[in-house]
């Protein structure tokens, strides 16, 4: 009888300990989950901001002057040549193949 009681007591102690530690672990995991959820949320927010910033930097009214400065412009029929020789003949040091803005 005594041995049973003793065993039960030990079991109680052991299970209390197990319960407590698993409870503690659970809380730790919960904290980590919350932390990671926050990190995900923050990353998503950052992605949204970066996407918006990237689109803002790539907006046409910023790109246009940059492209114009590089001598780029809309394709024009003047860029067509009837043969490779014709194209080479047009090649002068200042002709980059791009056309300036038309109609000015």
């Amino acid at each position: 009888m005594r041995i049973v009681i003793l065993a039960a007591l030990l079991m109680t102690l052991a299970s209390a300990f197990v319960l407590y530690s698993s409870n503690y672990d659970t809380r730790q995991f919960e904290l980590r989950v919350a932390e990671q959820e926050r990190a995900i949320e923050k990353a998503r927010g950052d992605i949204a901001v970066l996407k918006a910033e990237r689109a803002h930097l790539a907006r046409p009214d910023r790109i246009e002057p940059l492209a114009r400065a590089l001598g780029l412009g809309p394709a024009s029929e003047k860029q067509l040549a009837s043969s490779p020789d014709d194209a080479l003949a047009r090649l002068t040091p200042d002709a980059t193949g791009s056309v300036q803005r038309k109609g000015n």
Partner: protein
Amino acid sequence: MNGNEQPRDSSAETAPRAANGPLRTLIATAAMALFFMAIGAQLVRLALMGLGDGSISLNEAVAQSFARPDIVDRNGRLLATDVEAYSLFADPARVIDRDEVVEKLAVVFPDLDRAALRRDLSDRNRRFVWVRRLLSPRTAQQVHELGLPGLDFRRELRRAYPGGKLAGHLLGHVNIDNKGVAGIERYVDEVVGVESVQGATLAERPPVRLSIDIGVQHAVEAELADAVQRFEAQGAAAIVLDVGTGEVMASASLPTVDPGQPSTSLGNLDKVAGSTFELGSVFKTLTIAMALDSGLATPETVLDVRKELTAGRFTIKDLHPLRRPLSVAEVFLHSSNVGSAMLATQAGAQRFQDFLRQMQLLGPMRTEAGPIAPPQLPQRWGDVETMTTAYGHGIALAPLQFAAAAASVVNGGHKVTPTFVKRPEDSGIAEIPVLSANTSATMRTLMRRNVAERAGTGKRAEVAGYEVGGKTGTAEMPGVGGYREKAVISSFLSAFPMSKPRYLVFVLLFEPKGTTESGGEVLASRNAAPTAGRLISRIGPLLGLLPTQAAIPGAPGLAFDASSAAKYETR
């Protein structure tokens, strides 16, 4: 009673004590076990449920906003998105020094309403007062550095428009709770759907893909701004429409609006779909298409247009009379008011109206961006109205609605329904005929001649290699007590390439002045036509159409490799 029971009681107490010993122990053990089980159960419950995350949900109802899907253009480039922003609120119960809070905040927000804030903070029963919403991170940091107790931030969603004012009229705008109230933003709320959220949870819906192309939209806006400056106009508008699918590739109205800072100023109304105008001679395109389609005339039919027409108190005359009979083709090329009025009269009011109804010009029309301003029709439609409508007066239309009808004239004669949302690649478009293919082909030839020939009014819209065709229109604007002669809307209706039109371009300039650029004239041939030409030379390559030399007489007939047209997609 008592005396009787006493002995029985005492005897019962001594004798069963030994017998009841194990029973009592059992009861005690059971009670203890129950007690421990209850504790255990409570522990398990706590372990499973947690203690709650301790955050307060004090003001959830106040801080509700909407998470919206992104809006992208047809190539997936971003037009509108949600970003997180900080909103500042105060908890009056926790504010220690009201005046300090008000004074220090006024440093960060110079336009702060101090009296209102002081009043709000005085009410100790309130636990939540918005101070300023949707702050930039920098301003939020400044407030944070003040270190005032009782102030706190909530993260909320704010709509950002990375393109700035690009396509501002079309996009519309949202209110402070991120709810769409105008334009495409409203369509997003009503049709696509938004999620009601607390705090800053981004939407997970797929983006709304519009039909417009950011590059084309920008080119159109830039060219219009240029034209407004060149011709000292009060405003301008332009539409680029895919004549096959009805997709609007660009829709611009100047002065522009910023979707991030909506204003309700009347001068900034959307001129493409939000207002109606008497469009003038561009309307002759429809009158002549009607005459050809109903078999009343062929391009060679000769009309005697030498006499001025009188109808009621109106006299209809031509601006530059040629003093000889004109063929129907010449009526179109020389933009004869008398000739068009004669054709409409010949057809009769009923047939003319039926034709316009078939072209969807007499009824209301709506797009995803909301209803198009309904057409302003004559009160009663008699002979006079038939004549004036023939050359585009007495009937006021939203440019978008007119452009859709004009698109059916050039696209082989089938119905065009304008849309601002990209159609799926595989969706077939039901071809509902409204005109015969022959009429459409004849109209294309006439429009092309109007640009290609030296005498054509649209010759300044010619762009080498694009086979542009079009019709000019210079309409006097109605003012107080009649039409104002020098205040005009000059417009150019064009399509390209004319052998098989892909896109329609409709340009309108409002109240342009006679500058040296336009030879001192306000005629569409001198301002709207060259603007359309410049526009087409810019947007052609963006739309994947490259110029060819085939269309130029005497040229070797070269063309770009069409498959090499630059197309890009971003995610």
